[in-house]
């Protein structure tokens, strides 16, 4: 038996790991990957609560809204990564580095 708390704790830990990556790493690609980890933590929450709702209300119709929201979240994450990587590529061409400490102006 896996109670809901375990999923929430797993998601909290994943979020914290992602936040640490965003705060401490200098490589922009690693920062993007850390943001993805944080988004996946949110997805775990969505799916876990959806399942929990279904289990707590067994007579009601199965509700997969949380799973659908997780799918939307994955799609938006894909769009975000596509644009993020393209920006990084452009930044690398301009500055020859993707270290976030060294990219300190918003001018091209």
């Amino acid at each position, binding site marked *: 038996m896996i109670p809901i708390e375990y999923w929430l704790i797993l998601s909290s*830990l994943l979020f914290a790991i992602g936040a640490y990556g965003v705060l*401490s790493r200098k490589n922009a690609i690693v920062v993007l990957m850390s943001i993805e980890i944080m988004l996946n933590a949110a997805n775990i929450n969505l799916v876990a609560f959806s399942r929990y709702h279904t289990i707590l209300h067994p007579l009601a119709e199965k509700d997969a809204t949380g799973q659908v929201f997780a799918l939307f979240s994955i799609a938006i994450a894909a769009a975000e990564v596509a644009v993020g990587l393209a920006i990084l590529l452009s930044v690398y061409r301009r500055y020859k580095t993707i270290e976030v400490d060294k990219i300190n102006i918003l001018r091209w």
Partner: protein
Amino acid sequence: MKAGYLRGLAVLALALLFIGAVLSVQWPKGDVSQDDTVTNRDVGRAMFGESGASGYGLIMLFIGVLLLVALLGGIFLAKEEKEDEI
């Protein structure tokens, strides 16, 4: 180096805060890993609905447009500039 420790401590405090908040709630008993699983069929029903305008079909359409725009934006940003265009 000290800043790294501070960041680590801040993130640890955040994680402990989350875990403390989760554990302080009296959750009703329910096994999330129970076997009467939600199937793809249920996800499809939730996404497109049983009939008419129910479900999230329109939102999925918007997400498709968002992905297309992101793709085009990504291509535009990643496009290599020629020397004479600068």
